[in-house]
């Protein structure tokens, strides 16, 4: 009943934000998937009129505040990544889930590289291969997140 004004979408995004800051053991921490990016990608593919670059920028900004990074780093990377999806949503929509998973992986790699480039520009960070570990988990996560979020969308009849 209240799903039409996007509360469910905001709720899933908030849960994704929380998942990306939940404390994890140090050994698994490097493999934390990009929850926010995955949820944003799904909604951007399903409802491009509701979730777009601006939503992505806001989510990235919240992530900046939560992670304590320089304001705008994650916001810009997230917005640029989602911009590519928003431009090609009709193509990506028609791919199978596995192909979409690979695309999610490529986008996640782009996202992490963008974050790295901004950080490198700001603080001379050195590239470590571990910065790209989340790409693997994001590829694995995509099919499950896709099925779950589709179920959520159909159940609440979000249009």
């Amino acid at each position, binding site marked *: 009943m209240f799903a039409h004004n996007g509360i469910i979408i905001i709720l899933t995004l908030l849960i994704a934000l*929380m998942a990306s800051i939940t404390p994890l053991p140090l050994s698994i921490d490097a493999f934390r998937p990009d929850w926010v990016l995955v949820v944003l990608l799904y909604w951007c593919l399903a409802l491009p009129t509701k979730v777009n670059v601006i939503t992505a920028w806001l989510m990235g900004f919240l992530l900046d505040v939560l992670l304590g990074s320089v304001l705008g780093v994650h916001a810009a990377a997230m917005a640029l990544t989602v911009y590519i999806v928003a431009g090609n949503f009709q193509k990506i929509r028609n791919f199978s889930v596995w192909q979409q998973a690979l695309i999610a992986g490529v986008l996640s790699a782009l996202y992490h590289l963008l974050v790295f480039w901004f950080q490198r520009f700001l603080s001379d960070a050195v590239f470590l291969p571990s910065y790209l570990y989340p790409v693997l988990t994001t590829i694995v996560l995509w099919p499950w997140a896709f099925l779950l979020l589709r179920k959520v969308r159909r159940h609440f009849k979000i249009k």
Partner: protein
Amino acid sequence: MASFEGVRGYLQSMVSPLQYLATTPKRLLDWSLENVVTRRQLIDENQQLKSNELLFKEQLMQPSILKQENDRLRTLLRSPVRADSKKMGAEIISVDGDPYSHQVVIDKGANDGLHEGQAVIDGQGIVGQVLHTGTLTSRVLLITDISHAVPVRIQRNGIRLIANGTGAIERLSHNHVPHSTDIRVGDLLVTSGLGGKYPEGYPVAKVTAVRKDESRPFAQVQSEPVAQINRLRYLLLLWPNQKNSVFSTSSTVTSKGN
């Protein structure tokens, strides 16, 4: 810029409910670990703590007499007495997942009187300083962060150095150390109090490597923080009691010379 820092504080307090929610599972686990213990374990721990307390009290006797004597001598020299600074305990709520910065979030904020730039220590030594204060939570920048540096001196001979964070949790680096500097592996580095952020005399790091390669302009010195940066839980916040404690001494000396 100052007003913008304030905005960051507001943002920090705005997202603190999210942080509390996200760390709930961890806090539940911690809580159950603390509450589900056997009587035997509690008794053992209690005994351990009691013997520790005895040990610490014994160690405290000598310094307290020395401190009184030192205070008396400083009053005779008309230099300001170093008063005990205000302290407050805090607990870590969350550690950042961001691999580019070393920061933790603690459960005390502007409501508890925290301010930016305040020194934070643990049981062993300096941990970092307060970066942003929200209403209920605040963010601490650790000494190992790549953008952080602490003015230190070698405890053995008082040579001043700067301890830079490297982005690695167990390593600090020291730039511009001349080859002739008397520095050895195992030297303890303590805060020098210069710069006014950190109070004087707290342990920071132990020197782990000194490489004096004459083909390079400076010696390469690395050290390891004495605070256990990767297993922090309880922290202590310090309030500076007086600014420029180091310089005020020298100013009194020069005024006496005139």
